[in-house]
């Protein structure tokens, strides 16, 4: 497989995963504002995810609606959902001979849906959750179609590298931004809906309830998101997936250099033998910092091994 094609497959899934994360965030933030009446989260999302400093303070429901439409449809912001899907589709278009026909159709339909004329005007009057659910449905179809129609070869593995690298970055951001920066004096913190919405935004509410019942503690949340191997959005889950797919790729392409395998194996083992106690001793911030350093090395190594080899 061409290096350029491998790179495009990687980014196709990265953009799909990123749009998925952002849409879920929109949904739960909106949900949270319904409970709390606090609209300040929108400003943080715009800064963190769209690199835009909001000019106004968000005060009411109408601000929420226009912000959501901005995040989804603004074609001048490269991180809007529309632009991410456009890029995912552009990548898909350039690798059509390597992805299943069905997968191409699913990305293309998503793009066509978002790029319809006047769609944002049409959406203005609709319930934001229905809008986001409609879009999330396209992401779900994409994942299922990839699962049932994509051959388990190079292409599938490169797609998964993109997907899980993006996902682990999102999980780390979640802990870094939302947990470390948690304002202990925030009065909402003691409302039951606060943790519920927090967990829903990363898709872990149900599993949390099953594991820890209804007792909410920050420690439990950290444990679940960092090292619960069963939670598909935990750091350890994504790292294990990255590990599996790089090993496959190494076999498929007969790569003699084991640097990437080594880096991932090491990170995967470290996480395996990490407990919530050891995270507490180290401090969450240091723990995340170390993982970030490792992930940077892994990302560079993926690039050197597969996308930009030196000859």
């Amino acid at each position, binding site marked *: 497989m061409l*290096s350029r094609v491998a790179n495009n497959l990687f980014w196709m899934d990265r953009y799909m995963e990123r749009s998925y994360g952002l849409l879920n965030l929109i949904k739960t933030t909106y949900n949270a504002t319904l409970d709390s009446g606090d609209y300040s989260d929108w400003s943080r999302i715009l800064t963190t995810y769209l690199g835009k400093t909001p000019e106004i303070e968000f005060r009411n429901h109408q601000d929420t609606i226009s912000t959501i439409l901005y995040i989804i449809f603004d074609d001048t912001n490269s991180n809007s959902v529309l632009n991410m899907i456009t890029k995912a589709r552009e990548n898909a278009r350039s690798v059509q*001979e390597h992805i299943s026909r069905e997968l191409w159709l699913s990305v293309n339909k998503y793009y066509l849906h978002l790029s319809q004329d006047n769609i944002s005007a049409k959406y203005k009057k609709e319930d934001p959750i229905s809008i986001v659910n409609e879009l999330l449905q396209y992401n779900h179809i994409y994942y299922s179609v990839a699962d049932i129609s994509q051959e388990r070869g190079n292409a599938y593995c490169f797609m998964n590298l993109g997907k899980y690298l993006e996902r682990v970055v999102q999980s780390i951001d979640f802990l870094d931004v939302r947990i470390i920066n948690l304002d202990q004096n925030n009065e909402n913190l003691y409302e039951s809906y606060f943790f519920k919405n927090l967990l829903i935004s990363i898709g872990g509410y149900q599993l949390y309830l099953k594991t820890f019942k209804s007792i909410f503690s920050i420690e439990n949340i950290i444990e679940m998101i960092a090292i619960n191997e069963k939670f598909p959005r935990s750091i350890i889950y994504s790292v294990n997936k990255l590990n599996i797919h790089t090993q496959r790729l190494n076999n498929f392409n007969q790569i003699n250099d084991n640097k990437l395998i080594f880096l991932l194996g090491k990170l995967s083992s470290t996480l395996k033998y990490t407990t919530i106690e050891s995270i507490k001793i180290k401090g969450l911030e240091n723990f995340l910092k170390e993982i970030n350093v490792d992930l940077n090395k892994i990302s560079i190594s993926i690039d050197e091994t597969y996308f930009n080899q030196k000859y």
Partner: protein
Amino acid sequence: MEKLIGQYHQYPNTWDEMFDASGGVRSLYQEFSSFLNNIEFENLNQMKDFSNQFFRNQGVTFTVYNDNKGVERIFPFDVIPRIIGIKEWTFIEKGIVQRIKTLNLFLRDIYHEQFIIKDKIIPPQLVINNRYFIREMINLSVPKNVYTHISGVDLIRDKSGDFHVLEDNLRTPSGVSYMLENREITRRLYPNLMPKHKVLAVDNYPQMLYKQLKTLVDKSDPEIVLLTPGLYNSAYYEHTTLARLMGVELVEGSDLVLDNHEVFMKTASGLRKIDIIYRRIDDDFLDPLSFNSQSVLGLAGIMESFRQGKVCIVNAPGTGIADDKAIYAYVPKMIQYYLNQEPILKNIQTYQMDHPDQKEYVVNNIEKMVIKKTDGSGGYGMLMGNNVSEKEIDDYLHQLNKNPKNYIAQPILNLSTAPCILDNELVPRCVDLRPFAISGANKIEVCPGGLTRVAMRKGSLVVNSSQGGGSKDTWIINKSEDA
């Protein structure tokens, strides 16, 4: 619907594919006309919407650039197929094979011994001064002596029903993916009629192409790639389709490297050697060292690899001279010269504008003439003498006089028409036919049918997609007219 057929007004002095001069349905279209008689117009419109939706979802689009923003358009498609009987098709097929064989011999000759010039069949300046004559190709032997691996021959039908060759396209002709997609959609639109008519299949074109390309090198499993200028090229859809259906890599210039004049592509598992490149970029952009030095689309040094026989380039560089509009006039003579045969397919009478007598005749009969630039394509740079002002003619002739050898003229032929669904009416529109031929080491194959292009505007003779033309599916059926 009977009313609609009744309201069909044929163009004067024009052959219609479905109806004869007295308005009767031709026998090839008998079953199709009973289908039309039994369908509501509403359904035809639904079929049209369905096909547009189909093309959009599949991503069968070409990109038009406006204000730096790319807009993807679908190629207009008419749901009514164009039907040709097997007997007529066999005739066309033979004619195309004869022509391609000849043009290939011509290319080999002018880049080697140049017998055809020495024997005074073709004036030397027409070859030597031609901008498509590439000096780098002189005395260079190409693999299996094939230059024109892939060609699309444009045919039109005159008012008496005879086919003429309008153009031989030997420089990466496009449109074959539309031929394939048009068939995909008509299968769905006519679930009853298609099987009943036993339409000859076109969907094996990619396999046919792959097999013929394979014959170019003596290797059991050669590495074949398709070289595209990239995502922003208007024919990118076609490039991905062909690569996907042939199962070969779609590469860009930046994916390629040279080592010791061998061509390699950069893959996830290291460098992989390439044997055959089906390039969809023009000669000019192929190698910045030999041609346009500004080009970043090709690969610097690839011509030298080609010279050394390390890689096979399809079509060979320099084939453009054989489909040049000035050379075109000599093709019938070439067929006699190289094959000692009578041309099967007719040429259109062509006048050389640097020839004083011929030019005088053209200027005196300008209202019946079309003048074309020999290096123009896509319907650009031509003058249709029948509906232009005197000033436009004067301006054009003024330009022409600066360099008359760059121009040719032909009588305006009334292209045949075929019924189309437009604005809730059944109306005639002009059509041509572009069958696709593939030459390998041992034989020339023609895919049955091809692309029927349609001039969507009323009265227009311009079928080029860049000028708003559309297309139809072309059915070759196992039945003959009046059989």
